[in-house]
């Protein structure tokens, strides 16, 4: 091979390398642009992850007539008890029985609040992920003593006054029944999940679980300690699946 031919070949190789570098740079720039943009970029690079997520929605019909825990007959009391609001017992929690791979990554841990107001826990049902810290402020003028004997997270916050708050971090999945040691009619549920695929129903019993990767899952509806049978739900690629439940 002559020197000219060797020189041409070298220049050609350099051009290919430069083109390859430009391609890589373009790809990286596109990737960065796609990741930084709130709206998924219309490029083929960033689209799959966002577009693949689907959702599950539907309605939970609570057939059982759940009644709020009443006060014990206050036979030894010298006067009438405080009038308190009736907690909304028709709120249900719908959740994936088996979560997609990658859903169990450690959670940084958010915060949630369960207030104590007029001898009632508000909200009555709280659904959180593992690692969440729940604050229990006391908004009443008298003492409360929040506690739970559940195996998932036993705790006893002791007595504390109005304006004070104490917290509990939940590090294991499960159902935690919460009570007040002073007011036996006060009770609430905290459902702790190891994945984020759950939703609380609204006042009409409707729910929507967002960002569910495509696949087939078992889905369960839960209300006041009663769970429905698991129903298989197929979430299409970037689509919406519908499933209604009845809890008896």
């Amino acid at each position, binding site marked *: 091979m002559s020197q000219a031919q060797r020189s041409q070949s070298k220049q050609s190789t350099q051009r290919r390398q430069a083109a390859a570098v430009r391609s890589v740079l373009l790809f990286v720039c596109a990737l960065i642009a796609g990741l930084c943009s709130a709206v998924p970029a219309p490029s083929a690079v960033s689209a799959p992850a966002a577009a693949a997520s689907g959702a599950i929605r539907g309605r939970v019909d609570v057939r059982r007539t759940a009644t709020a825990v009443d006060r014990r007959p206050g*036979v030894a009391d010298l006067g009438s008890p405080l009038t308190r609001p009736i907690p909304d017992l028709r709120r249900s929690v719908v959740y994936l029985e088996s979560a997609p791979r990658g859903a169990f990554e450690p959670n940084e841990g958010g915060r949630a609040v369960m207030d104590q107001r007029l001898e009632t826990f508000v909200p009555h049902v709280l659904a959180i992920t593992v690692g969440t810290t729940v604050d229990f402020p006391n908004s009443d003028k008298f003492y409360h003593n929040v506690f739970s004997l559940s195996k998932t997270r036993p705790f006893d916050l002791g007595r504390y006054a109005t304006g004070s708050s104490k917290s509990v971090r939940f590090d294991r999945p499960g159902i935690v029944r919460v009570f007040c040691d002073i007011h036996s009619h006060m009770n609430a549920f905290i459902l702790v999940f190891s994945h984020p695929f759950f939703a609380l129903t609204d006042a009409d019993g409707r729910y929507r679980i967002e960002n569910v990767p495509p696949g087939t899952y078992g889905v369960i509806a839960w209300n006041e300690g009663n769970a429905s049978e698991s129903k298989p739900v197929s979430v299409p690629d970037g689509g919406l699946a519908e499933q209604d439940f009845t809890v008896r």
Partner: protein
Amino acid sequence: MTGWGRITRAWMLLLCIAGRAGAQVLPAEPIAVAGGRLTFGGDVSATIGPKDPGFFNFTDYNHSTLRMLRVDFSAAAKAGDHFSLLAEVRSENLGQVRPYALFVRIRPWTARNFDIQAGRVPPTFGAFTRRTYANDNPLIGYPLAYQYMTTMRANALAASADELLAKRSEGWALRYSVGARTFEGGVPLVSAFRWDTGVQVHAASRSGGVSGTVAVTSGTVSNPRVRDDNGRPQLAGRFEWRPVSGLVAGGSWARGPFLSRDAARAALGALDVDTSAFTQTAWGGDLEYSRDHYVLRFELVESGWRLPTVAAPALPQPLSALATSVEGRYKLRPGLYVASRVDHLGFSAITGTGRTLPWDAPVTRIEAGLGYSLQRNLLLKVAYQHNRRDGGRLEKIDNFPAAQLVFWF
């Protein structure tokens, strides 16, 4: 079956309940029907302990708090916002079912903390009287003021100071020469095991920081009655102040004719007697402070009885008794607590022939124990009780271990 056999059987039953309660076979909450207008609750406690030869823990002639199966059922029926009917029945050691409470509660103005209760009403006097249920009592025994049977009786009396001194420590079962000639138990300073009958008015400030109760009833605090046996009612009052969260200061007072008309007739030898002079007057003060995982309580009860004198040496007026108790509870961890109570009951001195002594033998009790919640409404308590009596013919010192299983809904 003997009483002891019944208790053993009851314990077996409760242990079965404990095993099955985990599966929620039994109610964990009050039973509400008719849209919550009718509510039922219950308390079952089974206590097992050794014999009590000194009768320190007896509540009447037959029952000891350390060997008792107590079953309470209560009900509340609401008729609108203004009227409720409340009732409770009780059985001890599977014996006769007795009405414990039956009264109507009227709230004339729903926006105000003002209630009128009429019938067999809860006690106005004292702080402990409203937490005598086993799940409200951190220990197994009761404060002496509310349980210990003194040598005072409402239907019989000692003719003289000598006769009264001869009966020291025998409050469990005693007979006097004046009045009813039966063997019966004496009365405690304040009865926690029977409720009085009458009308009670309760009012509280909007914030609940201050409250007061007055009642007119047929018996007295030591001898509550359904039917009046001396023609004159008792007047009782209680005041509570909650200056800050966790602190409750209370004061109580009660005064009413104590001696039955028949006993007064026997003492005075006349058919037409005025019983209004033979009274029981009681004063009480109590303090409770709680915070975080502990509760501290202090209560003091002073009672004085005025009785007729039949023979010399005369009974001084009044014959008084003073009970003090300090109680504490601390939660070690969820579902587990330790508790203790120190209690003393003393009596005023009287002079008989050649001796001056307290009219009944003073008693001191120290009790310590722990409670463990097997589940929220199933509590196991174990306690150790030391009792000491200074004088009298009965056992001077008794130490008891005891265990109690409590189920409530």
